[in-house]
Structures are given as C-alpha cells and as structure tokens.
C-alpha cells in the first residue's frame, strides 16, 4: 500500500495492532489509524471484530475517502492473486488488491488492455470500483464500473454477496462508486479490451479558450481517448490556453512487451517554498510551448500517454509535507462553457496555481453505480499546493460555484466539501447509506454526513 506509514520508535513487540499516521496521495489530511493487512480472503472478516474499519488499497485517492481517523484500515494489497482469465473473451477475475499495473504486466503481453484507466496505474481493482474511476475514454466507454460484470462483496458479519447487474443488483449499484463502505470487495471480474500494439496514435492540438476546447471535443468524439491540459495560471491573452490530446490504440501489430519497473523516485520531501507561483508559471509556459507546432501527430507508447507521472515514484513529495488539495468538478453542458470559464477565472485570480490542470468532456454512457461521480458535461481536475488559508478559501469558493452551476465534486479527490454540499451533489446518499456496512466508515463519510 502506498499510504505512508511512519513507524513508531520501538522495534519490539508482536502486537498486531499499532496506531500510525496515515495520509492519502494528497498528503492532507493526516490521521491516526491502525493497519491490518489482509493476505488471504479468509483473513476477513476480522476475528475478533473491530469497529470502525475501512478497506484501503494503494491509497492513491487524494483526500480522506481512504482514511479513517481512529479506526482500522484493512490493507488489501496482499489480496493480489489473479483467479481466472479467458484468453478468448478477455474476461479477468482477480482478487481486489491487484493493481492496474499488475493487470497490465500480465495482460499486455497477451494482447489485452484495461477497459478504463485513470492517470495512474498504481491503484487497486477494489479502489477502482469503490471510486468508480474514469479515464480519457469516458465519452465512449463510461466508468470502470461499466466493465465489471461481477464481483463478490463480503460484509463484516461474514455474509458473502455475489453482485452483478442481474444478481443482487441493488448491492451491485451501491458498491460501484460506494467508496468502500458497503463491505470488502473480495474479487471482481474485469472485462479487458484487445490491443495489437503498445502504441497509441497521438495527436496534440493547441487551443485558446473554452470555445475552441468544446469545438475540438465535438469534432473528435470518434477518438477513443481525449483529454486537454490547460494552463490555469495565465490571464489575459493566454487565459485558458491549452493542448488538446487525442489518442487511439494503434492497429499496426507491434511486439507486446511488458513495461520495465520504474527507476526514478522522489527520495525526500521538497521544501514548501519550492512550488511557488513563479515555478508554476514557468512550468505551464514550458508545457504549452513544448509542443512546437499548433498540431502534432505521433506514435507513442501507452505508458507516457496514460501515466506520465508514474515514471516518478512518490511524485507527491514535490508538494512538500503540507501536501496539496485536488479539485475535480463536473458541470452539465447547460452551464458548461461559461461555468468553466468562471471557475478558471476564479483560480487564475486567486494567484494560486497548478502544474497540471486537466479538462475533459464526459459522455453519455451511464455508470451502474448509484453514487458514481461522472455525468455528461465538462470536468476539470487540478491540484493546488496547500500554502495557507488562501488555498482553503479558494476551494470553498469553487465548491460553492460548482453547486450553483448544477455540477458536483468527486469524493475520491476531495478533502474539503461540506456536508451540505455533499448532500446537495449526491441527494441519493440517504438511500445509499442503507447499504453501508455497519462496521465500515471513512473520515470522508463522517465529514459529509455529519449532523445527518
């Protein structure tokens, strides 16, 4: 698991329960929990029972959706076995602690690829289902949950529930995007998609402003993968400039070798001042101008196309000990253009910046998950280092704007939304709450259902 575990000073003792500091990938907030690693399906439910508890995989979500103050985290990374694979259909069954990186390592040489992937491959299948993650192909493929035909849910009382669209469909819907709260996902089936090459046919197109972005998105709905990087620091002439990126799996057969292990790692925490506005302005300008022409095409490997940051392990350390906040909203098309412009303007005006801000049009494919984040519209994701209250004030303002514009925020990337905002974004939360395992909760859930 990737959540950082700061060991207590003493080496002695064989006690099975220790309280340690935990943080998610955003490094905010930091909470104390005990860790109980699970290695076999028979390790759960815990005996004797403990409460509260929460499953956590790689800890790559950003806020507190994978944290539990004062509770027990069930580390699922030891549940890393592949259970069955049909080489004809590409249907993989695996335990829930298997990471997407491990699936790629196994499946790419056999000519199969993930149906949906986020911007990192270092997440578990269980986490991908629990947060119903999406990727650059959302407009055509929907969320990860759309490609999970079946899984088994185990409740803390030992009840095992086989879930699919036709069997226990209510549990199926509650667990996809259910933030790990409905029970432990023991194993899941994932429908992979065929490839003949590691390569992606890539196109990068410079754009200025939301109108150009939306026009490019509309014109490229045939492409399997689309996403845009956007400069959210520059104002005036360069406001909302960016690079629109398209990709399709290459149809020309090519050797399907596995990816070598990453070697680069950020070995220590950067000091807080390292990420100043100047550095980010330089980075954003350089990123925009790295592409020398208005329109480029190239054949690129899938690793840099999908996972540019995975090359550097522990990249979150460049944000220093204080960490960063992620913001991801989706706005419906009705208010999309002017809403996104207003949000980008608010970010640029705040004087706070982001290295990597990402804009994407989300499509119609509906998720089976009842609490799933995506909806048709425009989504913006960015990270902002925590400098002071200015950061928190900006996030509060952005959450309010999202609410007024009829959009919603993504729990997996949130450390800040209020209970009122959450309950407005996800009015179905009360029905969902009935499916929560009585022994399971998270710091996020406690925060957003507080007082309810």
């Amino acid at each position, binding site marked *: 698991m990737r959540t950082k*575990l700061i*060991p*207590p000073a003493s*080496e002695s*003792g*064989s*006690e*099975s329960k*220790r309280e340690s500091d935990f943080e998610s990938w955003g490094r905010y907030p930091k909470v104390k929990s005990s860790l109980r*690693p699970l*290695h*076999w*399906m*028979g390790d759960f439910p815990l005996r004797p029972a403990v409460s509260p508890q929460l499953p956590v995989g790689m800890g790559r979500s950003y806020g507190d959706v994978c944290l539990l103050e004062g509770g027990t985290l069930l580390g699922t990374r*030891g549940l890393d*076995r*592949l*259970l*069955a*694979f049909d080489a004809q259909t590409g249907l993989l069954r695996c*335990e829930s602690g298997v990471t997407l990186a491990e699936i790629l390592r*196994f499946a790419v*040489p056999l000519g199969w690829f993930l149906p949906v992937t986020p911007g990192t491959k270092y997440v578990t299948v269980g986490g991908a289902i629990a947060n119903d993650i999406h990727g650059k192909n959302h407009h055509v493929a929907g969320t990860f949950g759309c490609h999970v035909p079946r899984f088994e849910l185990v409740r803390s009382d030992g009840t095992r529930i086989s879930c699919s669209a036709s069997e226990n469909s209510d549990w199926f819907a509650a667990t996809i995007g259910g933030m790990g709260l409905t029970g432990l996902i023991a194993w899941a089936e994932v429908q992979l998609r065929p490839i003949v090459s590691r390569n992606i046919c890539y196109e990068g197109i410079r754009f200025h402003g939301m109108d150009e972005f939306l026009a490019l998105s509309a014109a490229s709905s045939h492409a399997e993968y689309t996403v845009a990087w956007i400069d959210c620091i520059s104002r005036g002439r360069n406001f909302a400039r960016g690079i629109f990126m398209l990709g399709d799996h290459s149809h020309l057969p090519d050797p399907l070798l596995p990816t070598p292990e990453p070697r680069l790692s950020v070995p220590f925490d950067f000091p807080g001042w390292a990420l100043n506005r100047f550095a980010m302005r330089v980075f954003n300008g350089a990123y925009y101008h790295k592409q020398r022409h208005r329109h480029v095409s190239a054949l690129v490997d899938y690793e840099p196309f999908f996972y540019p940051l995975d090359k550097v392990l522990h990249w979150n350390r460049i944000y220093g000990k204080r960490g960063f906040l992620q913001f991801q909203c989706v706005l419906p098309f009705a208010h999309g253009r002017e809403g996104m412009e207003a949000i980008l303007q608010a970010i640029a005006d705040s004087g706070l910046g982001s290295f990597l801000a990402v804009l994407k049009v989300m499509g119609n494919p509906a998720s089976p998950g009842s609490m799933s984040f995506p909806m048709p519209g425009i989504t913006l994701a960015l990270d902002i280092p925590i400098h002071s209250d200015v950061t928190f004030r900006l996030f509060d303002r952005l959450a309010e704007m999202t609410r007024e514009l009829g959009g919603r925020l993504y729990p997996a990337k949130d450390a800040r939304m209020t209970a009122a905002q959450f309950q407005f974004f996800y009015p179905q939360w009360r029905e969902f709450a009935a499916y929560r395992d009585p022994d399971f909760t998270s710091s996020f859930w406690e925060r957003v259902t507080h007082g309810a």
Partner: protein
Amino acid sequence: MAHKNAIPQTVLVLGATSAIAQAWMRLLAPHGTQFFLVARQEERLRAVAADLQTRGATAVHIEALNLDRTDEHPAMLERAARVLGRIDCAMIAHGVLGDQSQADRDFSHAAMLLHTNLISVVSLGTWLANYFEAQGQGTLAAISSVAGDRGRWKNCVYGASKAGMNMFLDGLRNRLDRRGVQVLTIRPGFVATPMTAHMPQGPLFAQPERVARDIQRAIEKRRDIVYTPWFWRWMMLAVRLIPEWKFKRMDV
C-alpha cells in the same frame, strides 16, 4: 561454477503459501512450469494455484499438509515426484519467526520453532538429497535468513534454527555438487511479508518480488548462497567480523 541452469519446468514448493515463494512462482508460471504445492491450508493453496494457472502454469497440483509432520514427508515427496515425473527444482520455503520473548520463558515454544524451521527441513532435505543424487541433476533451494549468520539476543532461537539449516545445506552441497545438483541457500534480510507485518517497516525492508528475482537469478547462475537484497552480504560480513568480546556487549 558450472553451466547455467535453464528455467525449471517441474517445481516442488514446500511452504507454497509463503509470500516469497508466491512471488518466485509467479516469475516461473508464464514459462509454463508445472507445480506441486504443499502447505497447511487447502483454501490458501487453491488461491495460489488459481493465480499460477492464470499466469500460465501448465499444471498445479496441491497437497495440504502440515510440514511439522515429518513422518508424512516421504509419502508426500514420493507423490510429488510421481506426479511431476521428475523434479527440476525443490524449494523449501516454510518457516516461522516465533517470538523470542516467549521462547525465553517457555522451552516448548523454542522446540516448536526448531522443529518447524530445522528438523522438518532436515527431514525433507534427507529425502530430496537422495532423490537428486540419483537423478544427477536439479536444484535444491531453501529459504534461510541473514539471522543465521550471527547469534543475536533478539532472535536467538530463530537464528539458531537458520544457522543449523545453513550448516545442513552446506553439507548437502558438499555431497551433491559433484553429482551435478545445485544446493542453494537463500538468505533474505527483512522482507515485507505476513511474517513481518507486525514489525515497523523501515528502509531495509525489501519487497518479495525483489527477493524472488534475486532467487531466480541465483538458480539460473547456479549460485551456492545468495543474500537478498545484495547489500546484506556485505552487511553480514561486517557483522560477522565484529569480535565476540565486543559483540556480546552490543544491544542487537
């Protein structure tokens, strides 16, 4: 050192649910290896077998057996040899860490630990040495520990069991090398496994995948002893060089 070994096609793993053994077997499975797996719990063996089969193993046979029961070893090993046809590599991977503070108070805990880590290994090794000697080729590998290199207060019975294992394997190597059989002593340092899950995981902890790669390389290169990760070799050399009059006063 003789020629390089090929990737083993038929493998017997004793203690097959150990994290290091699992990681190592995952390296072999895509090559179509046949496995015979032995461990205590059948349910866990089934999960491991499914994983290996999914990853490309040609066949995976399982047998649930508590390896403390040395009287059952010969029959089990004969079954394994019969089912696999021939054994290219036997991996002894079972073992317990024990609790030194309990062993300090209660000899029966120390005796249990020695039985599992040493006596049962001698039992398996005796049968396997005769088997490999007759076969005239193959690899007998066993997971020991750097803890067997010097006696420490904090794990003295565990260390003694591993030191005994090292001596036994050295002796078997002395006998079998001339018959064309590799005897490999694997000495890992701290590895992040269920066995060490209760310990604070410092920077010296290695992942089982890393250890597994070192093991496979040592098998292919027909090494005798492999420290994994590599730096333990030099660290333990330094530890062994400390004179006893000094070492006995150290808090280790």
